[in-house]
């Protein structure tokens, strides 16, 4: 059967591809120049933050404009732990758990408010976070920020610092992506998707929209914290500037540009976050904001599903040219969103959400 053999071929090419990428990633830092290693490290740092954002926003459809707050919180917790000589594993766990708990609390309150109210609450996070970081100077070092060196290569490794940092970031990023990928692929991934598209249907499947939103938000906060840990591993310094609102918006842009609702898109988003400012700076440092906006618009206009959809779009264009689609049945004219019955059911759901609160 041709279909079967193509599936097998697909599977073995995939295994080979993964092996090649894995080997390349392990060997790369040993041969690449330090600057390239540092760039790749920063991609890993932001890819993890974008991954978390993608889970709550791309997959679950809950606007979150405060992801950078959790990145900053993770970075501060890391700095605090390192400067108090905590074990590095403990530091990492705390850098994930503390933002996770804060995210959980925020989500428990915010997910009760429908739609845009969640967005407003998340906007408040970095806006409150910056002055808070300045005030709590005992923990944060105030406006000057705080530094923590814990990722210098140990002597036994024989590595340079940039190489050592590369491996730390690679380890955490790979783990985060594997976990995130598994989460969005099964039971909970489907729950995220249906909560995004139709809460009334979600509820009729036994899925609580409220709990699902809280879960997605918490997961995003944990990944944000992990990203903050990696940020400190790479930059070794953090200040209130780290969690400024502008960076949060850039994370959202990176998520959408990479591809909302796509794990690979999160990685591309991380790369976008790092490369585009470099690129626009190289073009003209005075026009960075404008040229970043222009790039954003062009990509979204050409690829509304983000850069990750490029191969799919190219393939579809190619297929459309070679043969007209011959699928059975007609595409439905009715999108459920515009149907009165579903709208009515949605109204009903708001009542349900209120019910949930008790």
């Amino acid at each position, binding site marked *: 059967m041709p279909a079967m053999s193509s599936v097998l071929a697909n599977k073995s090419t995939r295994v080979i591809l993964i092996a090649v990428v894995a080997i390349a990633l392990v060997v790369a830092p040993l041969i690449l120049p330090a600057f390239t290693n540092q760039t790749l490290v920063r991609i890993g740092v932001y890819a993890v933050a974008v991954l978390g954002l993608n889970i709550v926003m791309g997959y679950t459809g809950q606007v979150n404009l405060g992801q950078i707050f959790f990145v900053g919180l993770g970075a501060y917790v890391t700095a605090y732990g390192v400067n108090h000589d905590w074990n590095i594993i403990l530091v990492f766990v705390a850098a994930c758990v503390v933002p996770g708990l804060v995210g959980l609390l925020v989500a428990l309150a915010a997910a009760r408010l429908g739609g845009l109210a969640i967005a407003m609450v998340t906007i408040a996070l970095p806006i409150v976070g910056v002055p808070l970081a300045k005030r709590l100077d005992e923990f944060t070092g105030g406006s000057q920020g705080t530094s923590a060196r814990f990722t210098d290569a140990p002597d036994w490794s024989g590595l340079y610092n940039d190489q050592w940092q590369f491996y730390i970031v690679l380890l955490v990023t790979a783990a985060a992506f594997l976990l995130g990928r598994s989460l969005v692929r099964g039971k909970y991934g489907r729950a995220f998707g249906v909560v995004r598209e139709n809460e009334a249907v979600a509820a009729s499947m036994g899925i609580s929209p409220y709990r699902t939103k809280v879960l997605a938000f918490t997961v995003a906060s944990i990944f944000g914290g992990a990203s903050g840990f990696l940020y400190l591993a790479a930059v070794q310094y953090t200040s209130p500037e780290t969690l400024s609102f502008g960076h949060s918006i850039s994370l959202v842009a990176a998520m959408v540009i990479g591809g909302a609702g796509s794990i690979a898109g999160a990685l591309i988003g991380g790369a976008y976050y790092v490369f585009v400012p470099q690129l626009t700076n190289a073009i003209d440092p005075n026009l960075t904001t404008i040229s970043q906006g222009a790039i954003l618009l062009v990509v979204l206009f050409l690829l509304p599903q983000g850069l990750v959809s490029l191969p799919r779009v190219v393939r579809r264009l190619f297929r459309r040219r070679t043969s007209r689609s011959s699928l059975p049945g007609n595409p439905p004219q009715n999108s459920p969103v515009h149907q009165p019955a579903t709208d009515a059911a949605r109204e009903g759901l708001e009542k*349900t959400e209120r019910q949930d609160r008790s």
Partner: protein
Amino acid sequence: MAASLSLKGVDLHFGGVKVLQDVTFDVEPGVIFGLVGPNGAGKTSLFNCISGHYKPNSGSITISGTEVLGSAPYRLARLGLARTFQQPALQLHATVLENVLLGGHIRLPGWPVSWALRLPYTARAERGIRAEALELLNRAGLGWAAGLPAGELSHGLHKGVELWRALLSKPALLLLDEPAAGLSHGEVEQFIKTVRRIRAEQDITIIIVEHHMGLISALTDRVVVLDHGRKLMEGTAAEAQSDARVIEAYIGKDAADDAA
């Protein structure tokens, strides 16, 4: 175990609009029950009350003896309730298989952490439910569509996918809202066979809202006729079709007089 359903004095108002008034009837376990009535009679609203999407202003609704009035709808799936929507509400970008798999949500074990870690028991459960969903689709003659985005299917097939999605949860009480609307004659025949097969194979109570009287006559053991939010009569499909009040409700008083 097929569930029973009991409604007592269900009232539903939206502002001043009385959508349901004092609706009372019982559905015995294992029957196929019809809910009919003219457009706007309140059939879908009644389904929404049973499934928890609407909160009745007063009355009582019990599923197998458990009061569900006031429960959040997501809790009712665990009582064995499943439903379809009058306007199919599928995830158009997800595949047909993924859509059907949603119905398996409550049957899958494990917490988010165990799924993120892909613990063996979650992977096994996922394989099992996928095999079951594929089996359902194959038996329905929809195996070819499993991997296609749901948006590429016809309207008639959407209704089918919704039905299989609901059935994957192994419901004890299944609510079908106009499952035959927009289906061709052949598809309606096929649907009737499917429902008969489902009833023969599993212990389930089914309530069908439908305007297609042929389908109601062919499938239901008993019907309730709603009109303007009130129960007009209850009986067999044949009794309903020959009931003067029902004919009047459907075609208007003048026309009923002319026909007489």
